[in-house]
């Protein structure tokens, strides 16, 4: 069992299986009834924004929700169990940014 303080995970960089940096973890979404982290809120970096074909917004933060089920490991960085292409595939449209990306 690897127990982490949430504030330790916050700020860690997130990488896909093909070694691409997605961004940094900024927050978590918690289900208080199950006491489980439902998703990680990731601030997407500029390069990943382009590769994921997400539209940059000046008013809102460029964030995506990543479901805990596609997180492979947590250490110095957060490794995802999917490639950037697969991640892009899950983001069907720019409007679905707030939709949790998880295993289908």
């Amino acid at each position: 069992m690897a127990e982490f303080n949430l504030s330790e995970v916050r700020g860690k960089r997130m990488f896909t299986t093909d070694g691409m940096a997605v961004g940094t973890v900024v927050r978590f979404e918690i289900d208080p009834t199950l006491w489980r982290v439902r998703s990680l809120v990731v601030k997407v970096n500029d390069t990943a924004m382009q590769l994921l074909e997400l539209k940059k917004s000046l008013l809102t933060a460029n964030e995506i929700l990543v479901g805990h089920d596609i997180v492979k490991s947590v250490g110095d960085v957060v490794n995802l169990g999917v490639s950037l292409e697969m991640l892009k595939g899950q983001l069907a449209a720019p409007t679905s940014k707030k939709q949790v990306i998880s295993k289908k």
Partner: protein
Amino acid sequence: MPIIKDTELTGKRVITDDAADVGTVGDIYVDVYDWHITRFDLRVEKSYVERLGAEGRMLRKSIVPIRTHMVRAVGDVVHLKDGLEELKRSTKLVQPPTKEERPSHPKKEAVEEPKRATHTKRYEPEERPRKL
């Protein structure tokens, strides 16, 4: 109950079943294997530090770990299942023992090592065996 951000949970007031406002939520701990929240730190109010048996700190707030199974509900506040007395008992089980509580191990008595017997014989010049 809606999904909440971790930043919303941190800082929420923690209330016991017997209506004691014991403090606020501090750090939250997660098991990254299944992303289950195991516990959070309760930053104890000064007035409850002694009653909860928490160690007092000079500058920082005293912290008591709260296992998530001890929580009844989360809303505007975090409502605990237990009263103050039960909380004191249950948190004591989670906390590491204090210096006084730790079992003292008797110090091992220093055993003198036996002196090594020297087998080398020192020959006096006239005793030294001659080489053939």
